């Protein structure tokens, strides 16, 4: 089985993997309150590839972080596979993130003191991580075309290579959900194409993908777009 395909978890494609029920997130900035996400309601079915688009500062990344349980909503509920993630303990949420979600950030998100191989396998070494094959990290590196760079350190990789390693790490624990924030930001066209190709393969393998992007080319890969505007989430069919 290719490394981007997931083992069957018994769920059907019609299941809702994500449900947001009136989710809001506000921040205090000096004396004023900023409403980054305002009463977002959303349901995403398993196996979809969804793009979140919008201007800078519209709340896209905050929405992605709310979905991934990286930040607690000021109000509302976030359900992953039907589980209210803020009704469980912090340790349980950590295990859930580790097993179920793969994050790809918009910045170089590798640990600089670990080599490429250790960076990829890092998620599988935490307490509560699901068992994975011994050679999975190497398989994933092969998949992203960096099979021979396992011993290199992040500082010796190009930006595009670092993104590919980070993407390989995202898949380490066979997550059901991939949250990718600007996965191709700052990359040249060729590298962007490679990353999108990998994302398509992952999606075809059964994982749900939500990506935040400015790029029309990237957004066009999604089945549909969600638009963020000043914290308001609206769903509309993709204009492809």
């Amino acid at each position: 089985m290719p490394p981007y395909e997931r083992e069957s978890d018994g769920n059907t494609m019609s299941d809702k993997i994500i449900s947001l029920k009136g989710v809001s997130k506000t921040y205090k900035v000096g004396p004023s309150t900023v409403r980054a996400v305002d009463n977002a309601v959303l349901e995403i079915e398993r196996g979809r590839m969804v793009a979140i688009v919008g201007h800078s500062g519209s709340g896209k990344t905050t929405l992605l972080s709310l979905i991934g349980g990286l930040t607690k909503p000021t109000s509302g509920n976030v359900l992953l596979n039907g589980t209210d993630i803020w009704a469980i303990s912090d340790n349980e949420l950590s295990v859930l993130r580790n097993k179920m979600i793969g994050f790809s950030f918009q910045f170089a998100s590798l640990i600089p003191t670990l080599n490429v191989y250790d960076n990829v396998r890092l998620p599988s070494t935490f307490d509560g991580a699901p068992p994975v094959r011994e050679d999975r990290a190497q398989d994933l590196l092969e998949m992203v075309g960096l099979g021979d760079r396992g011993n290199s350190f992040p500082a010796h990789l190009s930006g595009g290579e670092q993104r590919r390693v980070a993407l390989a790490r995202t898949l380490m624990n066979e997550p059901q959900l991939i949250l990718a924030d600007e996965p191709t930001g700052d990359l040249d066209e060729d590298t962007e194409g490679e990353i999108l190709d990998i994302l398509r393969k992952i999606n075809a393998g059964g994982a749900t993908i939500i990506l935040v992007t400015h790029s029309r080319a990237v957004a066009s890969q999604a089945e549909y777009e969600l638009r963020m505007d000043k914290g308001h989430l609206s769903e509309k069919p993709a204009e492809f």
Partner: protein
Amino acid sequence: MKRLGLLYLAAQNLRRKPFRSFVTIAIVAIAAGTLFSATLLISSVNRSLEVGMERLGADILVVPEGSQESGEAALITGVPTSFYMERSVADQVAAVQGVDQVSPQLFIESLISSACCTGHVQLVGYDPDTDFVITPWLEQNVDKPLDRDDVVIGSLILANKGETVKFYGHDFNVVGILDATGMGADESVFMTLDAAYAMADESAQDAATALELQPGQISSVLVRVAPGTTIEQVAQRIKTSVPGTLAITANELSRSVTDRLSGFLKGFIVLDIIVWIMALLTIAAIFSMIVNERQREIGLLRAMGGKRGYIFRLMTTEAILLTAAGGLTGVLLGGAGMFIFRAVITASLGIPYLWPPLWFFALLVLGTLFLSVVSGVVASLYPAISSSRLEPYAAIRKGE
């Protein structure tokens, strides 16, 4: 899958900022080294006093008035000295109420000249008939009383059993070597009073400088008090009953050493406290900086599934690694410093010194390491807790 150990991750993180890690290790090393060497010095001096006083075997030492300082120096550090008084003093002391046993001793400073003397050392004459210091040891180790040409030497005298040593032109056979005490006895040569008088008598012909000693003269009287009386009471009685003498109790002798030591250590301990506080503050500041610098990384680890406890353990493991390395360096440097400068310290302070037993040494090493590590954990506690409580998204955003 083989785990990525916390220890490995922590060590890798510390290698990232080698200078900062070095500074932290150095500060902890100074704190640990000062503590280690000060404790080693105190325990070595105490052990030496314990063993030395037991070897001295007397409750009170009576010396001529004006000879207290040189007498103490001879007993404590073996600085050679000569002073005399009449033997009748021993009889007067023996007559004082509360005195159980007395034994006279003679202190003779050997000559520096190599032609006459094996070395510049303290020669001690004792009376085999009344002695309660050397005689019990001889009975156990030599199995015969000393002849006129026999000596027993301290552990630091450079001669072996069976060899001959020369003082004031007189050859003596070394029949025994005393165990180390760390005190003046280690650098002294013991002979009978008769042997000392004979040596003095012959010195006019055999030595470059004659030994001006009359038969019957002594330097000190060792006193044991009778059970049921206090040493201080008896010492007071001797002072009033035997004019021209000074009665020094064993406690006073110890106290004069500990007073000298505490004067020196006072500054040392104040310095150590300051360095420990500095070390704690530095570790706390450095770990606050580390947490601040690595917020994004902490957020990433949390996003990947690292639990709060994992982040806390990672931070404290880094602190433990730094402080353990600092503690170990401090112990090694402190130990080496004491080994190298021991002679200078003891000579300049006029204190005895006897290395502690191995078990104490091991305990001191472990104790210093433990204290260093505990300090590191305590100092890094707040940054470690606050880093583990960071919300992953906030940490990632702050790190951008």
